């Protein structure tokens, strides 16, 4: 066999492989980032999430030449409203031919979009929505829960704070699905670790700007920890007023349910200093996360939040599953995702649990640094411990998921 024949043979053998590499609907993979582009969560997800998904698509195409030029990413605003999220999800799938949805801040919006996508057999990777309902009573074959959830937050923070001497708590929570769920989980975590509640938790109106009544109550109760399950702007107001009333000096520590980097930026690092929270990722965790964060910052102009890093990772995980399934057909991709194990710059020691679609990964309990202790810009957290993937999330035995 001479050289030419050899080359021709190789070419002939490789041709069908290339042609069969992908059976993609509409000839391409369309990634839909359904997010908050205008409201309270637009800073922590929003355009940054769209950019993160684009980076994932680019990186994937570089590594898998067969897909070069065949992936597109679009971002749509769901305004944190459940009805809008459902409508937009349907529109993206039917009109734009989107093959998957990712991000989904706001629990109610995530649940609504997930229900729509289920009917259309389109995989959904929820990164920024927190409710555990997604992998419990509302679980479905096409929905995957990435990055974090309320159980993981409560389990991480409740345990860490209680074990570090936070023996008595007074908790307030915003009175809607997310807050009620997080309060339940946090209370259970505190009690399991030998802590107690100084008074029953209080449900506060949502949204709310003035928390003075609860801070005065905390002043008279003198718990070790004032636990706040508020998120976003409400959290910023709580912490601002916690400082204003001088509770730290009166010996009342701060326990935070859900914390994003943008909340710390909104109020200044010192207002949060000493507070303990649980996060799935932070940009200066190690060399791999740093490297990616630098790339993101170059592309977007700002450091990534953990939600945005999660969107990158979730998008990449989805695309890798498409490559394994050799198609973007929903059922086939779901099959390729179930049980997959992987490890990337965001998700460490990760497994996708087949039974309830919870994505298990290592998470970290962190303490917010004082400004004076920051070694560089955006250096916010001291890592207290890492909770291994297998222990960080709700065990399967407790899950109410019937898929």
């Amino acid at each position, binding site marked *: 066999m001479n050289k030419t024949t050899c080359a021709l043979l190789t070419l002939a053998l490789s041709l069908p492989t290339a042609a069969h590499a992908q059976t993609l609907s509409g000839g391409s993979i369309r990634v839909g980032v359904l997010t908050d582009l205008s409201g309270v969560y637009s800073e922590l997800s929003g355009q940054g999430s769209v950019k993160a998904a684009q980076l994932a698509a680019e990186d994937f195409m570089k590594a898998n030449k067969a897909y070069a030029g065949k992936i597109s990413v679009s971002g749509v605003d769901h305004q944190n409203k459940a009805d809008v999220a459902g409508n937009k999800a349907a529109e993206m799938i039917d009109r734009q031919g989107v093959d998957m949805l990712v991000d989904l801040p706001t629990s109610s919006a995530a649940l609504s979009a997930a229900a729509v996508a289920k009917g259309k057999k389109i995989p959904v990777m929820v990164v920024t929505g927190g409710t555990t309902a997604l992998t419990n009573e509302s679980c479905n074959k096409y929905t995957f829960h990435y990055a974090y959830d309320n159980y993981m937050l409560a389990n991480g923070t409740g345990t860490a704070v209680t074990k570090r001497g936070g023996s008595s708590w007074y908790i307030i929570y915003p009175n809607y699905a997310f807050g009620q769920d997080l309060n339940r989980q946090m209370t259970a975590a505190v009690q399991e670790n030998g802590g107690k509640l100084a008074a029953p938790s209080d*449900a506060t109106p949502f949204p709310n700007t003035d928390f*003075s*009544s*609860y801070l*005065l109550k905390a*002043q008279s109760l003198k718990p070790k920890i004032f636990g706040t399950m508020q998120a976003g*702007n409400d959290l910023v107001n709580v912490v*601002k007023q916690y400082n*204003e009333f001088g509770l730290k000096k009166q010996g009342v520590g701060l326990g935070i349910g859900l914390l994003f980097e943008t909340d710390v930026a909104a109020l200044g690092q010192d207002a949060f200093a000493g507070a303990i929270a649980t996060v799935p990722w932070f940009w200066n965790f190690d060399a791999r996360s740093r490297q990616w964060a630098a790339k993101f910052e170059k592309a977007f102009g700002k450091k990534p939040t953990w939600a945005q890093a999660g969107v990158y990772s979730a998008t990449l995980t989805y695309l890798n599953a498409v490559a394994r399934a050799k198609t973007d057909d929903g059922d086939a991709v779901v099959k390729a995702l179930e049980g997959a194990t992987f490890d990337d710059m965001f998700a460490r020691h990760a497994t996708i649990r087949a039974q309830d679609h919870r994505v298990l990964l290592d998470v970290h309990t962190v303490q917010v640094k004082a400004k004076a202790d920051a070694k560089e810009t955006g250096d916010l957290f001291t890592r207290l411990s890492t909770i291994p993937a297998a222990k960080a999330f709700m065990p399967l035995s407790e899950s109410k998921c019937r898929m």
Partner: protein
Amino acid sequence: MNTQLLLIQVFNGLVNGAFYALLSLGLAVIFGMLRIVNFAHGALYMLGAFTAFALGQALGLGFWPSLVIAPVLVGLLGAVLERTLLSRLYGLEPSYNLLLTFGLTLLTQDLVKQVMLSRFAVSSAPYSPPEVLSGVVNLGFVVFPKYRLFVIALSLVICVLTWFVIEKTRVGAIIRASTENPGVTRAFGIDVGKWVTGVFAVGVGLAGLAGVLAAPIYSVEPYMGAELIITTFAVVVIGGLGSILGSVVTGFAVGVLAAVGAALYPPVANTLVFVLMFVVLLVRPSGLFGLPEGAR
């Protein structure tokens, strides 16, 4: 709940009451004199807070200069709005000025959001109280932030001052006359249009002042006025549309009611004011301090 805790909450309620009073005072002045339902009041309150923040960022101005400059700037903006837009709607149905001011609200909120995100790279900004007023003071029955005490005191002074000017001075007499019967007042050689603009500017300036006062307590963000304005309208209605005394007394009362409610049973805290409104309107349709239509 024991009596001491109740007392503490009553006291604490005065802080929010101060904001309600200042805001509804401006609304009452504007409505009482000009018959304008100013839906943009909440946005102008936010603009007061944002101006203070922006002055601090751009010019390094601290709280005290901002406390004077920001309300003046907001007042001037109010004068421009009245001259260029609102004045065209006098004589038309009130729903027109409601729509206009509501539109202005949406416009202002989004504009401020754009500026904050592009210029300051935040959508919610911190603002600190001045050095002398930071920290807490032990009042014996409660440890309370100094700044909040200052807010109660200053707003009381402003309320009394406004009431005094309108009820007891010549300026007040002219304003009252201009709105009661513009034709006759004009016949006395008084430029009614100018007075109307002035009153609107002052009313709006009061909202700006409330905004600056609020900045160190709440974070400065584009939608900070949206929630507050609803309660404030309820306060104005309970107090009696256009009644200055009514809006001030009701403002403080509603603040106290909400604080006590929040301590006793938090989920109803924000609803209490509307329950109160319901009851008052059933018993006295013109509000607590309002005069019946015929008696004006």
